[in-house]
């Protein structure tokens, strides 16, 4: 009895180990491809490989991933991975900034908002995303209109919209830290 069960579990785990070893590479490739396509869709034109040059930036106790987009040797922008708590779980976004600080574009990486309501943050579902494009957060107040800002919230999804704005604001703060770091390095 014990022997049979042991043999079955042993064979199963050996099989799983084999499959894990075989799929490990492709899984990593698939994940990098996803990050790369998100970076490419938000950043200004670049010719380097941003996902191999990740900078980790600390902001209010949390670490954020920043992908520098370079054309030649010059940094032309940053893609910043940011997140906030939405209506039902974490909303992860990738915000692309040009080096002057304007938002190039934003792509939603993952979320679990209500289908048909909160999921309008996806570019394919509504134009909510588009209103951030080409805006500079210095003059564009990234708070929903209800709270005195400039952002048109998604109807019936104010909590989602607020969380989204929070994530973009975080990305903006991280961006400012990046610029400060870069100027320090440039001065040395």
């Amino acid at each position, binding site marked *: 009895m014990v022997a*049979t069960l042991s043999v079955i579990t042993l064979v199963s785990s050996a099989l*799983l180990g084999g499959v894990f070893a075989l799929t490990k590479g492709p899984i990593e490739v698939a994940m990098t491809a996803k990050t790369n396509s998100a970076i490419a869709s938000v950043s200004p034109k670049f010719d380097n490989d941003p996902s191999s040059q990740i900078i980790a930036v600390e902001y209010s106790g949390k670490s954020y991933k920043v992908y520098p987009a370079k054309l030649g040797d010059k940094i032309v922008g940053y893609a910043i991975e940011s997140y906030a708590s939405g209506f039902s779980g974490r909303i992860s976004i990738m915000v692309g900034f040009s080096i002057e600080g304007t938002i190039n574009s934003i792509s939603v990486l993952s979320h679990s908002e209500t289908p048909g309501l909160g999921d309008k943050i996806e570019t394919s579902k509504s134009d909510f995303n588009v209103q951030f494009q080409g805006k500079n957060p210095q003059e564009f107040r990234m708070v929903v209109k209800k709270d005195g800002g400039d952002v048109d919230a998604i109807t019936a999804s104010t909590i989602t919209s607020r969380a989204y704005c929070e994530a973009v604001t975080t990305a903006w703060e991280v961006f400012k830290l990046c610029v400060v770091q870069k100027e320090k390095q440039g001065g040395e």
Partner: protein
Amino acid sequence: MSKLALISRGIIKENPVFVLLLGMCPTLGTTTSAINGMGMGIATTFVLIMSNVAISSISGMIPNKVRIPSYIVVIASFVTILQLIMQAYTPGLYETLGLFIPLIVVNCIVLGRAEAFASKNGVIDSAVDGVGIGIGFTLSLTVLGAVRELLGSASIFGMKLINSDGMLVFVLAPGAFIALGYLLVIFNKLKSRTS
């Protein structure tokens, strides 16, 4: 029973969703669109066939007392294999189905077929039974997904039919129950008429 009868039994007479009402958790949870339902169905079919074959070939060696744990280990292994493969080669589908893939382990149909059919029948018959039940499950989930997508987002297989948002309730959880209920009625009406 002939192989063809085995397959058609899985699709009509013992349709897992509309007749046996097994595996309701993935049925209700993943059918927000036709393509999601189909993906879930195909994933479950894979696990069904593999676990049916494995279990029918080793069932003679398993003592009665550790039957269920052994079946669960076999099923869980195939689900994990499937999960790794999907993550590697179909990351898009893997992300949409998300938590429901590991939950195939506890899908009543898979263990139900192992216990009720595969443990008592030969390898080939068990494989055919897996195919039949799998097709039945996939078709049911695709139909349910298509109905919910059509009513809820006015599109089918991702193609927009009319430029409207549709009735949101059908994409959300209550719509799953409503659509399933009506489909059950229609399926059983048609079934009773033919038999």
